């Protein structure tokens, strides 16, 4: 059993780790370390329902937490690691559209924006878990930023998964998680979407000889 103070502390710690993983993903260029960071972020995500389950002595959130852990810290990163190419040019993010310093500054700006956007949510229910929601929202914005500023197919897939992690984190924090049938369906969708992106990445490598998204410029008006 946990006291409320311990629970709030654990929650702050996990959500902090969750946000930190996102910032490190913005900072790093090596694709395999980006995927490893994503796995750590998945583990931090799973800790939210696990902590809640232990605090309330409820088995439901613990089961959900274990499923999230297996999927987001295990299966999905493994699926992505398989899509990292073996060629040297394929292992790193190419010269980014926005340099690292500016990227980190933008990340800080997005985090502040997240605090502004989430005010109505906290106003409706000022519980410890809800108070942590700005961090999850910050990761949503950072994920979108990663998706538009990276040029490797795999980095975009990582951005997509980060977006999904952060929306799931928001759901855990403000509602204790969506109903089971929705959670299962959504997880299945994400699993298949990542599978599709993985297959497309390897098709891209076969067809274009690389996964630089700058090569995708045949279709335009």
């Amino acid at each position, binding site marked *: 059993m946990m006291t409320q103070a311990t629970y709030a502390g654990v929650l702050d710690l996990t959500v902090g780790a969750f946000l930190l993983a996102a910032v490190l993903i913005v900072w790093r260029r090596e694709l395999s370390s980006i995927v490893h960071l994503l796995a750590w972020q998945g583990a931090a995500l799973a800790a939210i329902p696990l902590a809640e389950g232990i605090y309330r002595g409820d088995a439901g959130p613990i089961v959900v937490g274990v499923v999230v852990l297996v999927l987001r810290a295990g299966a999905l990163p493994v699926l992505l690691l398989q899509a990292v190419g073996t060629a040297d040019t394929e292992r790193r993010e190419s010269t980014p559209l926005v340099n690292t310093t500016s990227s980190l500054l933008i990340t800080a700006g997005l985090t502040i924006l997240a605090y502004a956007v989430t005010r109505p949510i906290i106003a409706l229910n000022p519980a410890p878990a809800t108070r942590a929601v700005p961090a999850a929202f910050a990761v949503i914005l950072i994920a979108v930023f990663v998706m538009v500023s990276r040029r490797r197919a795999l980095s975009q897939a990582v951005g*997509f998964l980060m*977006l999904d992690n952060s929306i799931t984190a928001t759901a855990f924090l403000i509602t204790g998680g969506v109903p089971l049938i929705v959670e299962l369906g959504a997880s299945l969708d994400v699993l298949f979407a990542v599978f599709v992106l993985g297959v497309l990445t390897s098709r891209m490598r076969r067809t274009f000889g690389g996964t630089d998204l700058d090569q995708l410029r045949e279709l335009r*008006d």
Partner: protein
Amino acid sequence: MSILLLVPILAPLTATALAALLGWRRLTASVTVFAALAVLVAGAMLALRVESGAHFGVGHLLRADSLSVTMLLVIGTVGTLATWASVGYIDDELHSGHTDRKSAHLYGVLLPLFLAAMALAVLANNIGVMWVAIEATTVATAFLVGHHRTRAALEATWKYVVICSVGIALAFLGTVLLYFASLHAGASSAHALDIDTLLNNAPQLDPDVTRLAAGLLLLGYGAKAGLVPFHTWLADAHSQAPAPVSALMSGVLLSVAFASLLRVKSVVDLTLGAGFLRTGLLVVGLLTLLIAASLLVVQTDFKRMLAYSSMENMGLVAIAAAAGTELAIAALLLHVLAHGIGKSLAFLASGQLQAAHNSTAISAVTGVLTRSRLIGVAFVVGLAVLIGLPPFAMFASELSISRALAGANLEWILGAALVLMTVAFSALVRNGSRMLLGQPAPDSPTIPLPGTVAAALITGIVLSVALGLSAGPLTQLFQSAATQLGASQ
């Protein structure tokens, strides 16, 4: 009743299972056609029963009301045309070596899966399940868009999956926020996302959180409906997909996504009043119309031309939804059905042109009417439906939408929309006549016309004419859908 609600989901799933086991064969392809017909028949059988109100099935998981039935009819009709045409289309590709058995197998599995996901999306009573189904359509159609394994098809598939997944993720965030608001309005966690619970509790939802949720849902489902700002995938995906898939994506998937938006709107309007989403839909609708019309003018590719015409129509549908009166909503639903059939005709015909010329350039194709009477007529009828010529149904629906806009004091919007639609109209007429009329070039290839494609085209032409002459009992259904969605008088 439960059975009737399950048929539109289970029939296509059976076809998927069969195709997975047996591969691409006449038998599995025909079962898929019958599954699509089953969706249509189940929709028709439900039509009379839902006029008095919504029916529920499988606990409270599924729901049939006049909007779901309308959408089932659209899915069933276009689904039947597209799966029927697929039989000959894929067989032809196999003969000519444009595809292999493995790709054909995958096509046979995914096409009915796509139909099942759309049926679930319109029948779900839980808006979380509705979201799962809409995202499932993206997953199911990804490899259908990439069926032709060219560079361009791969590029289109990547953009499609990435942009739609991000867009639809925003809709999930909106759903989570609505769930949060619903729990705080006193709903139990098992039913907080049910449409009937949300409608009952709508006045008690927290307005600030609901506003945030509504904005995200508009952006998210708007992405799948081809609306600004996440519209950039549309022309690529719709032009690279095989013709029957383009017909389904353009003719049905866009409007299924929009139907989800109508569901959300019926709840949100009760909480925030009609003004909030009206503004959002007007901005998004007009911008979509503007982009579609401008790109139609400079278009040199006939499949992209048809794709932008779909965007144009979705823009108009969004504007009609913004008007929100019973007249506007009923007209919008007629518009969606007529557009689905007309767009299928145009895409199925264009698929055969593409097969003949190995190109989708407008300049490569001339004299279609003299070269193949049926393909020419199908293309003419398809275009005539799309540009809203009488006697076809979109003439009536566009007239009603205009009247509704004028009635809702949106004359400025009406004026702007009419100007943009005229621009689109002239572009479609100019490009269409360049392809259809004139002398065929001496070295023009013969246009192949497999039997099932011909049958689907003839059926589509007959349906377009029939729907134009009289919407018959459908008028009643559209009216009842508008009333059930809480449209104002």
